[in-house]
Every structure is written in C-alpha cells, then in structure tokens.
C-alpha cells in the first residue's frame, strides 16, 4: 500500500505512539479528578502533552493550551467563543474547510455577523493585498486557514496580520501543524487551532487551541472540571474554562509521544522532505494529458505537500478507486469537506482527487503516483 492521504489523517504513526496509548489505557484513572496515584499519573500524562504542545508552538505558558476532541471543536470554540457585537464583520479566505465555514455560516444565518471572503487569484494563491478592500471599522475577526486542505496553498498570514494588527486572528493550522515550523506562524495569531492526528502524527480524538493572553474565549460547553466544584458557575480560568468533561488521556499520551518524534526529526526537516515529494509528483505530472493540478504551481514555498488533481475522463471518485485498485495508492476523492475551496478552484460539485504526503513517504511513492496518473491518462485516451 502507498498511503497518500495524510491530509485526512497521518499514517503510519511514529514509533512509540501506539505503545504510549496502550500504557495510558492500562492506567485506569481520570486526570484532575482524584488525588490517588493513578489519577496523579493521568494528570501528569495530560500535563506532559499540554506542555509539549505549547512548547512546540513556541509558547511558554501551558495553561493557555486547551485540549479539545478535534480541530472542528477548537474552531467552533474560538469562532463562537470570542464575543462579537451584532453585525460585526468577519473575514476569512474563500478556501476554508467546513470546520470554519459552517460556524461562520451559522452566525451569518442568525444575523449575528457579516461574513466576507478573500478569493484566491488566478494562480490559486490568496494575496494579502486583497484583504484591504474588505477591511472596515466593523471588521472584528479574521479567521484564516494556514494552508488549504484542497490546493495546499499557504495563506500569507504574516502579511495579512500587518494590515490589521488590532483585529483578533484565529488561525486554522490543521494542514500545517507538524508540517511547518509552528513558532513561525503562531506568533501572528491570537488563537491557534490544531488537530493532533494529521501532521502532529498523534491519534484521532486529539486537538486543541492556544489562546493569547488577553483574548477572551467563552466556553461552548460547561460542566465537570475538577475545579471550583463548590460553585454552579463553570471556572473562568484556563485551561479549565474551555475543558468541560474528562479529557482523552490515552489519546494525549499518544500525542505527546508523537511530539517527541517531531522534535527528534525536526519539523523543518519534515517540511523539506514532504515538499520534495510534492515537487517530484508535480514535476513528473507535468504534461500528462488531461491532467489538471489545482492551486499554485511553480514555487514550492507557497504550499504544503497536498496536491489535488482532476483527470479528464474520470470522476474524482473513479480516479481514486482506479489508483487504489490498480496501483495500491490511497488518495481522497470528492470535496474534502471544503466546498468553498472547490468552488474557488472550479471543481464544484465533482471535486478532485487529493494526494497528500507525510513524513514516512518516499520519492518512490511520488514517482509511483505520477506513473499511475500517466498510465490512467493513456487508458482514458484508448477508450
């Protein structure tokens, strides 16, 4: 099997992750809820993951690193939790995943916000200057994906931040965390939303958000926290304020082990490795008849290692099936939970077939993908 669906979830996980999950599952206690030794050990597992994740973001304060079940929850928590006056204008890119688009649409539909979108240029890239005409005194929030999960295009977050330094910025780092040095972009955001199971190489069911000091995020859910138990009011201090309910201790144990691996291998090394593989596929795919590559071409520095394509004569699902059945290559077909990005790319509603590389892929994997596309293109012409 050649696994090229790391944009959905990374596979395989690094050595040590499944062992850490199994060890934590064998420890039967709940973190932060009791004072006995197994509970203390569970608390230490969560603490270690929290400290490591904040550390990898370049942040020294683990209390501001909140865990959530996934990044969808983290984005909902941030988008719905930052207090906005009625009619506030919120700006996102037109390449957002539904994890951002749906909460924004819900607020828009309720008349709570006005939602504006920055469209990519012809080359598939978002230009920071295109933010300018959308800004107004009523702009109260910016929500940006750091990289598109469809085209791989990087958003120029730093430049956009400079254009509106006082507008709170929520960054969706689903496709970049672990695949791009995190400190570089975390410093531009007020809230950084993360998932643990993609580039961070941990188990599913882990995610979180880091919140800059001074930024107020109200809780989506309240309940058990193990703190302020005498009160019917949920605690207002982080991380407890946004962590109602028992955490995924064994998942976080696996995430901490995955972060150990990332530290050891180096995120910049992983970025280079994955981009090299994307470069091999993009180079080899050039000239394949009927093949269209979505998003930016040329400069690899504008993208992450996610390459979506369409091939004339194949629907996105037929192409994905042919890649699996004929070549053992796993890809993802369809809209990738990002209809806006496909509309912007001209591939709505049929979608595209996505190849997404991970740290364990090899140049041979990329060459095999290109060879398969070439052969399938030839078969199409023969029909």
């Amino acid at each position, binding site marked *: 099997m050649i696994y090229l669906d790391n944009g959905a979830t990374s596979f395989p996980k690094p050595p040590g992750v499944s062992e850490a999950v199994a060890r934590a599952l064998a420890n039967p206690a709940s973190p*932060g809820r009791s*004072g006995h030794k197994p509970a203390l050990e569970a*608390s230490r597992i*969560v*603490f270690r993951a929290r400290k490591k994740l904040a550390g990898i973001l370049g942040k020294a304060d*683990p*209390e501001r690193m909140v865990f959530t079940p996934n990044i969808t929850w983290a984005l909902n928590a941030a988008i719905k939790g930052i207090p906005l006056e009625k009619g506030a204008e919120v700006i996102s890119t037109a390449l957002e995943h539904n994890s951002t688009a749906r909460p924004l649409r819900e607020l828009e539909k309720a008349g709570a916000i006005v939602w504006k979108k920055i469209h990519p240029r012809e080359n598939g890239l978002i230009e920071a200057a295109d933010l300018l005409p959308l800004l107004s005194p009523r702009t109260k929030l910016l929500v940006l994906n750091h990289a598109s999960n469809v085209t791989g295009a990087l958003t120029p977050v730093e430049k956009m931040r400079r254009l509106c330094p006082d507008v709170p910025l929520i960054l969706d780092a689903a496709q970049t965390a672990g695949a791009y040095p995190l400190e570089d972009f975390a410093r531009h955001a007020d809230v950084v939303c993360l998932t643990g199971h993609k580039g961070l190489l941990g188990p599913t069911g882990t995610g979180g958000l880091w919140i800059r000091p001074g930024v107020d995020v109200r809780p989506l859910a309240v309940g058990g926290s*193990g703190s302020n138990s005498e009160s019917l009011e949920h605690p207002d201090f982080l991380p407890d304020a946004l962590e109602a309910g028992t955490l995924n201790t064994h998942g976080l144990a696996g995430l901490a082990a995955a972060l150990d691996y990332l530290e050891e291998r180096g995120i910049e090394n992983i970025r280079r490795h994955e981009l090299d593989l994307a470069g091999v596929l993009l180079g080899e795919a050039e000239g394949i008849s009927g093949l269209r590559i979505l998003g930016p071409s040329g400069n690899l520095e504008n993208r992450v290692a996610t390459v979506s394509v369409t091939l004339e004569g194949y629907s996105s699902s037929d192409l994905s099936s042919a890649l699996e059945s004929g070549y053992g290559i796993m890809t993802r077909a369809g809209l990738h939970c990002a209809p806006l990005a496909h509309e912007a790319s001209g591939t709505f509603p049929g979608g595209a077939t996505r190849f997404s590389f991970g740290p364990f892929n090899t140049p041979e994997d990329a060459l095999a993908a290109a060879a398969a596309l070439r052969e399938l293109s030839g078969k199409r012409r023969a029909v």
Partner: protein
Amino acid sequence: MERGPNPEDGRGRGELVLVFSTNTRILLAEELLDSLDLPFVLIPVPKEVNPNCGLAMSLQEEDAELVMPVLEKADLRPKDVYRRRGGAFTVQPPEGGF
C-alpha cells in the same frame, strides 16, 4: 524529592497545605520543585479546606522558606495556603509569614 506529610513534628511546627487554582499549575510547581530537589509531596486536596476533586501540595513548615520564594519567582503562587495541626486547618496570611 518527597517527604511525607507531617501533621506535627513535636516542635510546634507542622505541615503546610498549598492549594493551586488549576491542576496544570500544581503540576508546573511539581516539575519545578522536582528539578531543584526541593521537598514536597502531592496529596488529595483535604476536603476540610477545598471541595475540589484534585491535588494539593504538602510541605513541612520548615521547608517553606526554601519552597515559597521559588514558587513566587516562577509566578506559581498557590491560591490558598493552610497550616495543618492535628485535624485543624488555619488559613495562612497571603503575604509572607511562613
């Protein structure tokens, strides 16, 4: 370095119980004090002083002069400090006095 709770040492000096606002803060404090080989032990929060479900830190009073400034400097001041003598807990003053 762990030294068990010592409700009273016979010289009129007893145990201090430190309650932190969050579980994360007490574990930050644990990591810091461990790295400096300072004596303390984590205990279930005594229900006489706090209804929460988590942990508290127990120090022998004689060690407080070493431990408290370290916590202060790291911005890890406990939320509440109690002196335990026998079964009785008394709140300690917020500033110094240990």
